[in-house]
């Protein structure tokens, strides 16, 4: 197959119908920008969930009556409960120092003795969405003798988790629609090209052009439209993401591999879109 001819035909295809090509490219760019944003939202949600999981911890206040040996045994018991990842001991003294660090006030300025109890910080090895399991672990710790109180503030976390999950689901549904939309746009544009070139294609067949010879420039045209649209989308996504990461701390930046992936998706969508039109109309 003559590659030079195929590339020239692809370029000429753009020139012949530049209006519809441009429209197709811009529509794909729009769809893929949306796709990129959804992927980014999804990645940020994942990141947020991971952060939540790392921060899942219970504070177990220890009854004042326990001596050091009993405290150590209690810590060991807690550590043996399935789902507990790490147990850290916070002594009364450490709690007082923490208080001072956080509130900037000398605790003993008004009180004669340290009122803060010693406690364990229990880090969990379960995901934040396993609400039932977290409650179960907290319940088991609460039943251990020497435990004064188990404190956890997971209600907000559970709610956030719920919304994050919902947002992720909606994102993926939208991704599906965006993908189908891109396929439809390319497919429709190539269908129009085929319709406009029907007489020429008939003559091409009569002078001995093989189906592959006729189809290849159309496939390349669709693929190029997808790729150019994807490059525009990647540039836009990169620019907007840079601005947003500057404004909001903790947001993930788009990795270069992600941008390359978008361009590859554009090429694949363009190729598949043309393929659909060719299979149906040629």
């Amino acid at each position, binding site marked *: *197959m*003559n590659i*030079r*001819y195929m590339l020239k035909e692809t370029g*000429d295809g753009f020139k*012949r119908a530049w209006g519809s090509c441009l429209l197709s490219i811009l529509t794909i760019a729009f769809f893929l920008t949306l796709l990129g944003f959804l992927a980014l939202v999804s990645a940020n949600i994942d990141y947020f969930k991971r952060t939540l999981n790392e921060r899942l911890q219970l504070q177990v206040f220890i009854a004042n009556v326990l001596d050091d040996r009993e405290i150590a045994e209690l810590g060991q018991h807690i550590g043996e409960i399935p789902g507990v990842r790490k147990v850290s001991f916070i002594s009364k003294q450490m709690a007082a120092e923490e208080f001072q660090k956080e509130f900037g006030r000398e605790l003993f300025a008004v009180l004669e003795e340290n009122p803060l109890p010693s406690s364990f910080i229990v880090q969990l090895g379960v995901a934040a969405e396993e609400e039932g399991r977290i409650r179960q672990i907290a319940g088991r710790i609460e039943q251990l003798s020497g435990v004064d109180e188990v404190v956890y503030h997971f209600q907000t976390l559970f709610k956030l988790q719920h919304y994050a999950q919902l947002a992720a689901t909606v994102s993926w549904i939208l991704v599906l629609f965006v993908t189908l939309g891109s396929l439809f746009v390319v497919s429709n544009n190539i269908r129009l090209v085929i319709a406009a070139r029907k*007489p*020429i294609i*008939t*003559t*091409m*067949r*009569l*002078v*001995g*052009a*093989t*189906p592959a*010879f006729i189809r290849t420039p159309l496939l390349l045209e669709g693929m190029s439209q997808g790729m150019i649209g994807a490059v525009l989308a990647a540039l836009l996504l990169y620019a907007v993401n840079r601005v947003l990461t500057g404004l909001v701390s903790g947001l993930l930046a788009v990795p270069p591999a992600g941008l390359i992936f978008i361009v590859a998706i554009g090429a694949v969508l363009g190729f598949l879109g043309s393929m659909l039109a060719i299979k149906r109309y040629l």
Partner: protein
Amino acid sequence: MVELHEVRVTYANGEGIERITLSVAPGELVFLVGPSGAGKSTVLKTIYMERLPAEGHVVVGEYNSLFIKKGEIPYLRRRIGIVFQDFRLFADRDVFENVAFTLEVIGARQKEIKRRVLRALADVGLSHKARKMPDEISGGEQQRVAIARAIVNEPVLLLADEPTGNLDPETAAGIMEVLLRINTRGTSILMATHNYEMVRRYQGRIIQINNGRLVA
């Protein structure tokens, strides 16, 4: 080289060709003459295998309509040049590119394409119009471009379907001169026409067809 044996082709409206047997020998000039709707184009279509016979068979070189695979038809057509009444040029390409297309299809090298296209254009007297677009040249010139496109790959057989049908007598005579010149160089020509008066002026075998059947 080309043989039709008892070929029958029927269209949905009942028209077609019936029990057609004919042959074209290498280097021969054959006129297939008959009124409109007689079945001339259908005969040509069976030769370039746009229509496969319902009965009988067609042999073109090593290709036989009974055994040919769909994927082989483009390769058969590369050995045949086809010229139509309505020229069927690519309106979006200039004269040179129109003729070059036949060679692009077979993957010829650029140098070779340039050499052969210029020679084909010289054969039909259009070297000076290589960079003109089809709508910038006359009907007669457009048909010459179509002939150049048909012969540039040096086919063994040239099929011409009413090649002068859209042209005035003077221009038609010019086209006939071009076709005869090609024939004298050894290319077989099977030309379908309704103009019996015109073809009887030229040396060549005349086959008459009417209502889908050859006239004895």
